[in-house]
């Protein structure tokens, strides 16, 4: 039992570390972009919006393959030496998470009535203060964006397997471990890992629901 725990715990910790870091980066980059897109009247806005929404359907394995080619020794980003590291796994998840964060943020901010924007400006809000206030008003949508991205990251297998390599003690996460154990025929362990993944997802969603209740008060 102790040896199983010893084996599994680092995998759980790495899964959380990779996915949470990717979500954090995606939120920092994607939320301001989503707000700007929602408020902007620039040309080509609908094309960017369509790209963001299409990005949600991006197959992880294709992202993994493209990143693999870019990060491999002969690739454009080969100099970084990121292939088969957690950095590459985080980068893959950021690319997969970003469209969700941008798309959901954009939709949440667009749902705030335009008249509210005018009324806030009439109270003296500068463009940046307006954006900040609208972010606050869209907080439920923003939380949903972060949770969706986290869910996608935690359950993702194709991209992290290709760029992480599933190296024990280095880049092995829950999903790649499940794949490996299934291949080895160790279904009991694979199922246990699956149960841990589901429990994590449930715990995160419960925390989200509680946070949402608190912020809605």
């Amino acid at each position, binding site marked *: 039992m102790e040896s199983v725990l010893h084996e599994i715990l680092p995998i759980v910790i790495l899964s959380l570390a990779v996915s949470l870091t990717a979500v954090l980066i995606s939120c920092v980059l994607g939320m301001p972009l989503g707000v700007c897109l929602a408020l902007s009247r620039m040309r080509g806005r609908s094309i960017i919006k369509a790209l963001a929404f299409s990005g949600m359907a991006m197959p992880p394995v294709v992202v993994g393959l493209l990143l693999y080619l870019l990060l491999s020794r002969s690739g454009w980003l080969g100099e970084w030496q990121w292939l088969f590291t957690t950095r590459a796994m985080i980068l893959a998840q950021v690319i997969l998470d970003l469209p969700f964060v941008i798309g959901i943020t954009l939709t949440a901010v667009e749902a705030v009535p335009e008249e509210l924007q*005018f*009324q*806030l400006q*009439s*109270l*003296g809000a*500068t463009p940046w203060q307006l954006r900040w*206030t609208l972010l606050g008003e869209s907080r439920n949508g923003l939380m949903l964006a972060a949770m969706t991205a986290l869910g996608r990251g935690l359950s993702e297998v194709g991209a992290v397997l290709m760029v992480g390599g599933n190296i024990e003690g280095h880049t092995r996460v829950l999903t790649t471990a499940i794949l490996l154990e299934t291949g080895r025929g160790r279904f009991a362990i694979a199922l246990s890992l699956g149960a841990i993944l589901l429990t994590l997802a449930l715990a995160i969603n419960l925390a989200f629901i509680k946070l949402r209740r608190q912020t809605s008060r």
Partner: protein
Amino acid sequence: MTSRPLYHLLDVCFELSPDFALRIDDWQHSAGQTLCLVGPTGAGKTTFLKVLTGLISLQTGSIEFDGHGWSQGVASIDDSRRIALVPQRPLLLSRSVRANVEYGLQLRGFRADDWINELLHRLGLEKLAAKSAQTLSGGQTQLVAIARALALRPTVLLLDEPTANLDPASVGLVEQVLEEMRQRHRTTLIWATHNMFQARRVADRVALLLAGRIVEISARDDFFHRPVDPRTQDFVNGRMVY
């Protein structure tokens, strides 16, 4: 007119839609005075107030505010922060009542707890201060919108039917608070109303708007007792005009 002009609009045109445009040929308003805008629904009262916020880009014409020209009718942030609007259908932030009232001051980096307490007290909002603004009735929302605009001690207060959702006692209270504000801070009030009795009570001057144009503007008593334009005569006598 003894006081200096605060607003001067010249040849202003703002096309709201293909069917409606606000056209103001030459209009001036002095600081510290209360102007009531009256007119039937769809006459352009709300659009006129929106133009006066300095947040809307004009098609043509010029606006001068306290000696500063606004490029295409858009005010600098310094000028626009001297003007506050109480909208006809106020929308509040999903925060507490107090946070909503403090919002404008917060944007300016100020805190004024005593002033906010006084306002909440004067408008009977003290007990609601900690409550979520999303749970308020229409009348309470209107009072919070008035409080959040008054909190800024603006040079100009633009009021779009500010008492439309209020009971008679609250209407009296709001009129009294606004009059106090005017006397204490020499606030200029530009007040759109459907209520002729209210216009008679609060206005120094009254303007009749029809189809986006000012038909007649004059001192309150002249407007109600000696109207010049036949349409104004009809309007003050309760006959519908278009």
